[in-house]
């Protein structure tokens, strides 16, 4: 009987200790609540919770992550972009173990690029530096993203600064998706540079896909695009011409197969005075 009582006592004590251990700390609770609000895109309320946490528990283990999510809340709120950049910068400075926080650090850098781009487009030219300085980062994702983002800037003297990184992606990157993105970005910034880049692919891929749509004697569409982007380009042909092609029995696969068969293949579709010509050189 004495052993049974002792056993019950041990079990009760253990369960009490376990309960106390499992009980969530107030800073943790605040953090979890904020994350649920963020998940539901309630940025302002989430930001308040996080600021509450940072004020009340400055030594919290959640502090670094709370700084990151606070910056995220600011970045989603219109008119708070500059504060968001500062908040991300302050998170990056605060991180003690960059390896453990690699994903959040990377996300912060990318968010800074996005925010700086938005401010630059609104006329705040000084934010261009925040994008340009990230072109040279050792982290490939950050450097590539900065180059892709720069390629959208209409001022060619600025967007041209992305060319070396874009060329490097085409020449040395293994990921086909990234290569295609870099090719499109170069096509936008400097088509001449794209021609000069060798992507290590076969000669077949170095060929040019040409698409011309002539309507009433005038060129409505005139494109020279790398063969590697053929399926994307054919899919991007305006709806009107695509429906004409479909009517004549041509779909994307059929066109690609026919063009790939022989070097000199040319597809010519005539319909109501308009001529669609597709060939490769």
């Amino acid at each position, binding site marked *: 009987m004495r052993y049974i009582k002792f056993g019950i006592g041990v079990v009760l004590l253990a369960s009490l200790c376990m309960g106390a251990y*499992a009980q969530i700390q107030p800073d943790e609770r605040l953090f*979890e609540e904020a*994350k*649920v609000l*963020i*998940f539901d*895109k309630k940025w302002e309320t989430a930001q308040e919770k996080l600021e509450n946490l940072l004020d009340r528990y400055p030594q919290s283990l959640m502090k670094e*992550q709370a700084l990151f999510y606070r910056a995220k809340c600011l970045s989603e709120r219109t008119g708070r972009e500059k504060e968001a950049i500062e908040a991300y910068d302050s998170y990056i400075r605060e991180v003690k173990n960059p390896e*453990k*926080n*690699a*994903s*959040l650090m*990377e*996300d912060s850098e*990318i968010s800074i690029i*996005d925010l700086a781009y938005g401010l630059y487009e609104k006329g705040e030219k000084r934010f261009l530096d925040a994008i340009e300085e990230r072109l040279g980062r050792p982290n490939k*994702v950050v450097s*590539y*993203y900065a180059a*892709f*983002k720069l390629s*959208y800037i209409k001022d060619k003297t600025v967007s041209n600064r992305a060319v070396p990184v874009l060329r490097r992606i085409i020449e040395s990157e293994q990921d086909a*998706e*990234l290569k*295609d*993105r870099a090719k*499109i970005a170069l*096509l*936008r910034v400097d*088509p*001449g540079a*794209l*021609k000069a880049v060798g992507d290590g692919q076969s000669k077949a891929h170095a060929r*040019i896909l040409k698409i011309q749509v002539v309507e009433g004697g005038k060129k409505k*569409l*005139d*494109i*020279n*695009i*790398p063969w590697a*982007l053929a399926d*994307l*380009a054919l*899919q*991007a042909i*305006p709806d009107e011409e695509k429906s004409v092609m479909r009517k004549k029995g041509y779909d994307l696969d059929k066109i690609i197969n026919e063009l790939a068969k022989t070097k000199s293949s040319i597809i010519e579709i005539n319909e109501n005075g308009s001529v669609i010509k597709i060939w490769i*050189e």
Partner: protein
Amino acid sequence: MRKVIDAAGLVRGEMEKAMASVDWEALPAKVTDYVFGKTARPRRLTIGERLRPIRPVLIPAYAGIVLGIILGSLATFLILKRQAPSAVADNAFFASPEFIDRVELEMARRQTLDYLQKSQYLLLDLAQASSLDKGRGMDELASGRAKDLLAKKKYLNPQLENSRMAKAKAICDQIELLFLELSQISDDLTGVEMKRIQGMIEDRRLLLKISLVEKELEESEV
């Protein structure tokens, strides 16, 4: 009448005087000498004058040659200049900005579909994971896949801003937040954390929403 006859008489006298002063025999020789004398015997050029490259007499000819060279060069330049762009254009890449936007949108559509499909598999694994899976390295695997998908999502962001991708953007952003969470806590993913993530997946009907957006993207080619 008388006056006229008298005046004519005066002229006649003067004419007779002038005619008498001319030496009619020597006159032909004098005229011949005067007309042909200079050209028949041109001034001889000295050796120095002959060797001089620009002689005053040839200046018009030289000017003509120089003018011809200038005009010829100009014509050649203009003809070649007109031909050069077409030669380059035949082999150069080009496309209008609008067309490049369409190409990019098509690329975004395909890659968003790919991202959603891969995310769906990962979320399904997480939704069905039990505490037993933790021991089998489930959280480590999930973390690696979540990190890959996080990187993929970053490149999608610019195209997701397009209004035609609005629905896809909303669900992709939610998934991204879950993956960020997963990438942070997976080192020691406890049963409580796993339950919380599973709760988020189920409460927000994430898997259903993904399937619906996937269907829309499959049907809506650019």
